[in-house]
């Protein structure tokens, strides 16, 4: 595979890892008003991701940075076309991050209410909007010859886009419910467990609908048909989804959570594989599409960046894995008594 091809899949991988890691943070934020019925439960929910969410969010920064570095034209067209949606995501992420940080610093109801709303909104919006965005990328955007977007924000809210948004939302809620099942005990644990059981069939149905809709709305399956071995990605994803259900039944929550991680990576790659070599297909004329080849940086930059990524990304994975390991185990009421807890 050539440099552009390698970078195309690295690009997909970075987004996928972002959705896998920050995905359960988003999911917990969405479940937050439903499962967190009192202040203690709410704080346990936030603290279950407390030490990790910051590092998780950097995958977004890196995915964005790599898009800029390796595919400047894609970065430029994608982010300016999706202006309003992206701004909404950014504001949502700001509010969510500040809410984690600020909420427990003052013990009054009105102060905490403000940040409770921020946590919920700051999680729902990115979850849905990232789904809408990626579904629209899979489908193609009205990009003209000069790389200018000829649509509007509301144009993104088409049926397939909305299906993508819902799929992401449900996927992250499932992922988050499993993380909570892993990290909590007692009543909250029961609620998280039953939430994951309720979400699972909805997720299965949404996934099937999305896979079917992709047949009608996108050209993603072209790559699969010309190279059927690629269907393994879909099989693996579905298998992981079934495995998750099995592990929930056996109360093996870590394995269930790892399975849902595989589901997220597999789902993102379902689209990435189907897109190749397109990165932003034009719905006006396929010749106007932005591809890994017409959008890429110079060979020198791609080579230097490859060295950077080969050195640093494994290091990042290593120290993030250490952080996850360090903060293994349940978050309890006693943990909340400490000054530094969220």
């Amino acid at each position, binding site marked *: 595979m050539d440099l552009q091809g390698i970078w195309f899949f690295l690009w997909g991988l970075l987004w996928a890892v972002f959705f896998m890691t920050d995905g359960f943070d988003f999911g917990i934020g969405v479940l937050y008003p439903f499962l967190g019925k009192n202040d203690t439960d709410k704080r346990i929910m936030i603290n279950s991701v407390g*030490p990790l969410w910051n590092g998780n969010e950097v995958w977004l920064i890196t995915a964005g940075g790599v898009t*800029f570095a390796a595919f400047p034209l894609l*970065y430029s*067209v994608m982010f*300016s076309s999706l202006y309003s949606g992206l701004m909404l995501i950014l504001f949502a992420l*700001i509010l969510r991050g500040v809410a984690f940080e600020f909420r427990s610093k003052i013990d009054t109801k009105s102060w905490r209410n403000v940040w409770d709303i921020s946590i919920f909104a700051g999680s729902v919006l990115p979850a849905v909007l990232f789904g809408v965005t990626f579904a629209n990328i899979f489908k193609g955007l009205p990009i003209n010859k000069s790389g200018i977007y000829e649509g509007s924000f509301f144009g993104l809210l088409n049926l397939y886009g909305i299906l993508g948004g819902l799929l992401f939302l449900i996927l992250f809620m499932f992922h988050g419910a499993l993380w909570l099942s892993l990290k909590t005990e007692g009543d909250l644990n029961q609620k998280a467990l039953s939430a994951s059981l309720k979400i699972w069939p909805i997720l299965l149905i949404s996934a099937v609908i999305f896979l079917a809709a992709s047949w009608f709305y996108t050209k993603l399956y072209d790559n699969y048909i010309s190279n059927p071995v690629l269907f393994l990605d879909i099989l693996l994803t579905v298998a992981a989804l079934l495995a998750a259900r099995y592990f929930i039944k056996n109360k093996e929550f870590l394995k269930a959570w790892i399975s849902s991680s595989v589901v997220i990576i597999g789902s993102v790659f379902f689209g990435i594989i189907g897109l190749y070599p397109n990165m932003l297909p034009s719905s006006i004329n396929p010749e106007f599409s932005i591809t890994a080849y017409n959008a890429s940086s110079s060979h020198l930059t791609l080579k230097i960046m490859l060295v950077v990524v080969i050195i640093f990304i494994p290091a990042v994975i290593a120290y993030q894995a250490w952080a996850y390991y*360090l903060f293994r185990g349940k978050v309890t009421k006693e943990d909340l008594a400490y000054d530094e807890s969220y």
Partner: protein
Amino acid sequence: MDTVMLSRLQFATATMFHFLFVPLTLGLSIMIAIMETKYARTGDKMYLSMAKFWGKIFLINFGLGIVTGITLEFQFGTNWSRYSAFVGDIFGSLLAIEASAAFFLESTLIGVWIFGWRKLSPKAHAAVMWLIAGASTLSAVWIIIANSWMQHPVGYVLRNGRAELSDFSAVIFQKFAILQFLHTVSGAYIVSSFFVMGVSAYHLLKKQSIEFFTKSFRIALLFGLLFSVFTALEGDMHGVHVTEVQPAKLAAMEAHWETATRAPLTLFAIPDEKNEKNIIEIGSIPGLLSFLGYHDINAEVKGLKAFPKDERPPVLISLFSFRTMVGLGTLFILLTVIGWFKRNKLVESPLYLKMMLYSIPLPYIAIEAGWVLAEVGRQPWIVYGIMKTSDAVSPIASSQVLVSLIAFILVYGLLGIAGFYLIIKNAKKNPAL
């Protein structure tokens, strides 16, 4: 207003707000690391509570710095898409390296530091803060290299309708970047040290936790004194280099219209940009501008008239931001030198303590003014000499940018109020010992 102006205002709002938090992160992380190391070595609980007291403020500040930093990376794509496509080969890589080599470490470890008090030994916990400090500094290195490339582009060729990388080491080791990095980081240390001294002064004035805050004050004073002097000396070198590579910026920041040898420095002026002269000039010192720019009183200094009208930076803003920065910088040396002589009798010097308390905002103003000079003084170029700001903007409707600009002002305004309220609240607390 058009998309260009709105986008400029939006970027200025977002960066200047972001930069209210970055300098304190850079300096306070090192001071907290020193406190924790002292605790790990001596077991003196005083240093532990110092690390915890300053740590709390640090975290609020750090959180705001992180969330406001994210929008910046994406704004290059949303608002400056033509710029992004033109420079992504170089500028984009620098941002991506920053994220993967520095920002990741910093963000992952901050969680470890907050929640790791009971899981790590004091030594390991102190080491985590050292790594956070190191990674934040490394972040600054890459961001400054990227900005320096906009100020003074090197190591590129114009090919395929864009700037492509031709010499990576020329980009990362260029003199402009080194000078600008040293200037920015030492300025950040001044912000942090004045912050710690000011808050300590508040408590010393109230005569509470005297030993605690005397120690904090002295750690910060040493920082403040060293870096106030260093920033000024280094700033002089930086100025000489700017004169060489960005002569229009020098002319604008001095409101210097006519090319002249033995050029005078005017202490204060009000420029009339339309008629290409100064309305008021006070305190002209012959030869000083030549000396500052070239370290030679007879050197020729290019005036603004030597540049086409559409290639001159806004004179008034450049002039005032430069004077604000330099004037305050001089004051910082003065205040820290006085502090050095009073370091053993701080409690008996209420007037000095009061001055230091009210000086907290000054380094913030100075460092923001420095950035205003750097960025406004580069205009009309976004990449000096090769791309104009007006050619860099995204092909998007100005209404979109207007809405997001208003959202930025509202959201950041409220965040600023909440954030500074929390910082002040925690800073006023008498620390638990």
